[in-house]
């Protein structure tokens, strides 16, 4: 699904990601951990193609296509989707209107999808304007349910979400990643940034990675990495040999 090789990314002329190599196969979900400021969000945004993140060398291959320099919306059309940690509030733009503009879906279908994440009251509201943390996350999930991406990136889906919402979110994200389908037939892939690992209560991850100072240091079983980090902190990962 996604193949990143020797990727170097700069922001304002300073290299922030160094020599990233990451392979996510079809149907696989990977978890990305690491201390604050280590570059996890930067990696997601660089994969999505955001302008502030300049790829100075290396390549991103998505579904066999080189997307290293492809515009964001074309990546979205290819089947890439992202759940933002801090989505912008856009006044005057109704959530419902955005959903119809991006999907050409029937209003009834959109309404039903909105109901499934308790967002039907928000379709007529300006997107993210005055939304609580949980509402913002539900709005993100709704947008992804409409978009139905084959490869999904989630930037800290747990942050700012209360327990009740977390339950809903966890199940919805699991469904987006086709966790209800047998692994052999699962086609969707995901990359999830998590600090707490709560999301792992709702879905299994196939692999975990730890990023420190712009490098991926460790690869391994996601739960095991989480356990080590909880016990010993990220210092342990510094001993890992980057590959």
């Amino acid at each position, binding site marked *: 699904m996604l193949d990143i090789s020797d990727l170097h990314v700069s922001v304002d002329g300073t290299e922030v990601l160094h020599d990233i190599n990451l392979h996510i196969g079809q149907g696989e979900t990977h978890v990305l951990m690491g201390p604050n400021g280590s570059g996890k969000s930067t990696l997601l945004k660089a994969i999505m193609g955001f*302008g502030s993140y300049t790829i100075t060398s290396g390549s991103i291959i998505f579904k066999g296509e080189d997307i290293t320099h492809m515009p*964001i*919306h074309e990546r979205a059309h290819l089947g890439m989707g992202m759940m933002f940690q801090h989505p*912008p509030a856009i*006044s005057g733009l109704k959530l419902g209107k*955005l959903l119809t503009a991006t999907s050409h879906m029937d209003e009834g279908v959109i309404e039903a999808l909105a109901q499934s994440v308790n967002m039907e009251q928000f379709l007529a509201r300006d997107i993210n304007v005055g939304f609580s943390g949980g509402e913002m996350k539900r709005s993100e999930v709704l947008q992804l349910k409409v978009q139905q991406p084959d490869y999904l990136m989630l930037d800290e889906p747990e942050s700012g979400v209360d327990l009740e919402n977390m339950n809903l979110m966890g199940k919805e994200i699991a469904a987006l990643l086709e966790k209800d389908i047998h692994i052999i037939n699962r086609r969707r892939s995901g990359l999830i940034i998590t600090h707490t690992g709560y999301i792992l209560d709702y879905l299994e991850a196939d692999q975990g990675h730890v990023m420190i100072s712009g490098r991926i240091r460790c690869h391994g079983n996601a739960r095991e990495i989480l356990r080590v980090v909880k016990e010993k902190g990220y210092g342990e990962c510094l001993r890992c040999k980057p590959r």
Partner: protein
Amino acid sequence: MEHLSQEDQERLAQTGLEVGMQNRCGSFFQIDQDVVQTTCGAEGIEMLPIKIALEKYDWMRDYYWNAVPADADKYTKYVAKQETPQGLVVIAHPGVKVAMPLQACLFLREEAVQHVHNIFIAREDSEIHIISGCASSWQKERGAHIGVTEIYVGKGARVTSTMIHNWGEGISVFPRSATIVEEEGTFLSNYVCMQPVNRVVMYPTARLVGKNAVARFSSIVVATPGSFLDLGSRTILAAEQTSTELISRAITTGGTVISRGHILGEKENTRGHIECKGLILKDGTIHAIPEIEGTLTGTELSHEAAVGKIARHEIEYLMARGLSEDEATATIIRGFLDVKISGLPEVLQRQIDDAIDKAESGF
């Protein structure tokens, strides 16, 4: 109206004019200095050319050059010195409420200067909605329009005045309007100008003279290269418990917008707010000058103003959902211009939305 050329009919339609009169309860049409049509189907509402209204009712003199002084400036003086006044008088008799808008259409075709003097009177507990569409012929290269409008909102009455402009690049426009709102009266003013114009200079004023009176001004404008829009609105909170809101959205694609606002709070328990937002899409000028002036402890006034470009992360957010850069930009602009005016009949809101939608493709 039907005898106008196809091009001119289309230009008028863009200002919200319904040639076929659907969704309209009355219609006034002035080409240059000639009133060509005055019709009104609503009971209790009178629509008259001003000349006839002045002959018909002696008391019209009390409203003539009252809210707007005849000697206010050179433009009002020009209108005042005309031998035959031209323009529209609307009278809503007490208690008459009409949700369907009346349309007033002012069309500049051949003359160099069009002058208009309108008077709208809403008596006690009446309700009227007036949509003024102003346009010039597609063949008209230069010209000026001077329009004086005096609006009187009686006790408990409700008036909305929506003005949609569709002038040409060589046309200069000087509306001079003022409104007096009595106790429990509500005045809503909406202005939309999305098309090129040489110059628009106006600073309408609402004077709230009765307890609990409300005035709300909204303007949505685009300054294309060569357009100079000096726009403002002012409310004088001259009675207790009056309140006002002045909202403006300005976009420049190369022209100049001066966005003024002034609220004077001079009585107890008064409130006012100015919201002024500007978007610079291409190098041009947006100059926001919000002024709030209070003269006693019991008035609460505030303002917020912002001028800038579209935030890059907003565009990228929408692109991540599959919109191209141009689509994302247009979507954000449309949202920026989306000022929903509470209390406005749906048919008028739709008219405003249409005027914006038509211009949207140009960004």
